[in-house]
């Protein structure tokens, strides 16, 4: 047995020494297309541009994207519809459309639970009315929406714990963090991120989905100062990290205590946050500052703050070997969108691939052995 382990380790080292190809899917929201970006360790390039949408005279806004845990399918949310957005299912091998279903208003970020196999997608509803929106739960095999779980105003960031049993999203305008039980399909906990004193356990356990929103005065609904735009659970620790887009900080929430346990002061407009699969580093896009921050989660120090190649830094995807971060950058007006590839060890941008306008949702697809 010891002999076999030694062989495996040796083989692993050999394989790691070989060049790898990395692939990510990226949306271009104002181009109605999805790009496949390949990075070979040195150069990044868009190897495929896939037109999406059905209304040629309208921009339908591909926004959120995810790949199922098996890598066989990728899923895309098209934000605009008549009026509801749509979830599309494509094969990764062929990029052929194989299914779709209607979701809520402006469906955005999503992820599939390894526990339930279900897909959870926030309905961002940025259309102005300050009303609570929802998280759609979809069976991706049959592409049927099983339930819409009411959460807060402008929910965004849809990420699931590594055991697949807890879903997290934040409500940008109402400043709340929601935890959904992925089996029960109900809000299990809610945290007001604008309250410094987060010991109001009674508030924290209110089930928003059971509120009668017709009787609420949404005109008086608060507008969050934190303006959370993203949440990511740590792969190992019982913590989640929230991008405070309005407060220019990243909030660390202790899931055991259900309280804010730390605040990391960042640059202007933190927007998306991802954590390396090994749990050591956190990568944050600073949307307003057009920068990306790399943090050491063990020390709580920001290791680097890199200028993105152009304005409006958006999403982050991290390679499964924790080596590289892929940052989508929207561009402004007629500028192309792009993906900056960051070497997380050397802490620098290695290369940039260009794609269609307003690069947004981004998801790591696969690593393949290099040639």
């Amino acid at each position: 047995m010891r002999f076999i382990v030694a062989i495996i380790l040796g083989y692993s080292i050999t394989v790691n020494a070989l060049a790898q190809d990395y692939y990510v899917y990226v949306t271009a929201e104002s181009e109605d297309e999805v790009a496949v970006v390949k990075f070979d360790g040195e150069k990044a390039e868009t190897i495929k541009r896939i037109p999406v949408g059905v209304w040629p005279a309208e921009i339908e806004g591909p926004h959120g994207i995810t790949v199922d845990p098996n890598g066989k399918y990728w899923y895309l949310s098209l934000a605009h519809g008549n009026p509801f957005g749509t979830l599309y299912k494509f094969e990764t091998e062929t990029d052929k459309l194989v299914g779709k279903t209607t979701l809520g208003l402006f469906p955005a970020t999503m992820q599939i639970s390894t526990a339930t196999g279900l897909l959870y997608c926030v309905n961002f509803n940025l259309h102005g009315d300050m009303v609570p929106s929802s998280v759609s739960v979809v069976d991706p095999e049959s592409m049927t929406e099983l339930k819409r779980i009411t959460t807060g105003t402008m929910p965004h960031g849809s990420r699931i714990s590594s055991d697949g049993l807890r879903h997290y999203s934040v409500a940008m305008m109402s400043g709340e963090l929601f935890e959904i039980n992925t089996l029960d399909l109900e809000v299990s906990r809610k945290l007001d991120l604008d309250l410094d004193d987060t010991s109001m356990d009674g508030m924290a356990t209110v089930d928003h989905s059971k509120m009668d929103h017709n009787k609420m005065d949404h005109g008086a609904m608060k507008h969050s100062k934190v303006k959370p735009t993203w949440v990511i659970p740590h792969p190992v620790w019982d913590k989640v990290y929230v991008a405070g887009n309005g407060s220019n900080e990243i909030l660390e929430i202790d899931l055991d205590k259900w309280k804010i346990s730390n605040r990391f002061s960042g640059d202007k407009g933190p927007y998306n946050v991802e954590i390396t699969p090994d749990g050591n580093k956190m990568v944050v896009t600073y949307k307003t500052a057009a920068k990306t921050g790399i943090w050491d989660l063990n020390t709580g120090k920001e290791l680097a703050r890199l200028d993105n190649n152009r304005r409006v830094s958006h999403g982050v995807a991290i390679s499964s070997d924790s080596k590289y971060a892929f940052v989508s950058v929207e561009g402004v007006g007629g500028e192309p969108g792009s993906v900056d590839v960051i070497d997380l060890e050397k802490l620098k941008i290695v290369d940039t691939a260009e794609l269609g306008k307003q690069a947004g949702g981004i998801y790591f697809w696969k690593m393949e052995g290099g040639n």
Partner: protein
Amino acid sequence: MKSLSIFIVVIVYSISAYPQGDKLVVDPSSLTLEVGEKAKVNVSVVDKKGANTNREVRIFSRDGRNVDVDDDNNVTALKPGNHSLLIISPPANNNDERLRLEYAVSIKFPEIARIALDKVPDKIYVGTTVRLDFKVYDRTGTLRTEEGVTLTSDDKSSVDQYYNLTALKAGTTTITARIGEITNTIKIAVKDNPVVSVGLESDMIEARTGDVFHFNANALDAKGKPIEDAPVTYTFSGGAYDISSSASGLIKQDGRFVAEEAGLYTVTASCGQVTTRMTINAVARDIERDVKLMGHGSVGDRHTSDFWIWEGADGRDYAVTGTWGADGTAYFWDVTNPANITKIDSIQVDARTVNDVKISEDGKLCVISREGASNRKNGIVILDVSDPRDVSVISTFTENLTGGVHNLFIYKNHVYALSNGERYYVINIENPLEPRIVGKFELDTPGHSIHDVWIEDGIAYSSNWQDGVQLVDVGNGIAGGSPENPVQFASYAYPSAAHHATFPYNSKDTGKSYVILGDEIFPYGFNLNGPNTAAGFLHFVDFTDLDNPEEIARFEVPGAGSHNYWVDGDLLYTAFYNGGIRVVDISGELMGDLGKQGREIGFIIPSDPEGYVPNAPFAWGAQLHKGTIFYSDWNSGLWAAKVVPEVMDDVQVETR
């Protein structure tokens, strides 16, 4: 190395493929229920020895409107049909696999309870035919769409397979409707037919194709007295003058007839066995004219969207054009001389698409829509265009419009701006520095959506896809509405649900109020960088009776699809994407297929080898201004053309 790789793969495979043996056990194995019935489903996960593993299991309904399942796994049958539940057990540890099962639930259709025969006449005359209408209901009172209903009659009448009842003999006829064991029997009095003749007259005996004849038939008894309740049926036959064509037209059962082809037509009015005929002459409309290209303002580096032409304070004529999928630019043009369209200014806002552009009635303000703003706060931008050579931004307004504004309209110091294709807001711009929302209009139908809004005479005509056109009083007074309190008072929808644009047209010739509804359909996919083909047509709806709008005519261009259009006088100027610009005579009463009737006066197709997509016409919209047709094209910019008069402007006619 290769052999080592295989060795490792074998080890890894042998671990992951080790059968766990857990499986879902469901009792009962499937479910058949009556509507409203409840049943408990017991589900567990057992190992390969059959022992309960106590793994978590959940049951989900795929559609809670059909079948519901609660937290205790009680299933409630709501709607008949074959449905399925989804059962999932997540892995309890890393060695487990997720278990998943589709569970069938069959909900029986309730038994048919009754057949209702509607609108049954009190009496019918021998030799006449009426169509019987029926509805089938089940025991829950739900209307069913069952096939297999049969109607039978006795010897006093006959019923064909399409439920047409023809009276044969005087007396009382018995009609029986049956489906399965359920029957309904009715009796109808059959009277001897007193009609011995049918009088027939027409308001014209000769007219052009496309002109509507009005026939009036009277069923008369032996004394020449009209029998008011005797049904009269109109049909026609005919022959075309062109031997390569066939006579064709449309006749309505109220006596209206229109010919498509020039020819002789015979209209027949029948009451039972009694008929009468009248022949009329339809001459060719013969209105074709050339449409001559006047000028072109080229935009070859991006797509062009909507446009507007107006007379400026200096008396010169100007245009604004939007751009699509680019960098948020709008262009301004001097079009005083249509043969020399000159770009005079541009303005760029934070957007990718400036889809719509409109000018205020006084020509001083321009409002443009934004989509694809980098901060996702789209909204509208108000521009000062009092000097179109020096356009400046007055204000930007995004409240409740962040999701993007696709179309808008300006009317009496208010902007009507679409929000997210769901509703429109009414925005007061009396002080353009501080726009403010004063009202909104939104339907409450499921999944409602909106594509455009157009205002005329205080009535907002919104184009609401499957909900059709909505007529809303925003100051006309017809329904007490105002900008602050828009009041819907009429609507019309058609089955294709493709309604995207609206233009009202009041016919001075006839006094009729038409509303022209346009489709937008792309059935063949779309190529952003190549030529495209659209589909869809214009629907003419007679709204003279607001409570009973009637879709009465259509205009279509085979192989192309409608987009935006304009009416001036009795002429329609319409863009048909790849079919270019069409000029259509809509004078007089309208009925049937206007294109086939020869009402198209002329056409022009914008094609530019230097276009963004070269030689790929895709006309967006048209507007008549001071006798010139201006039109924008998605691939090539702004164009101008004129309908060539019968006598050319530059022809000198000499008389002696």
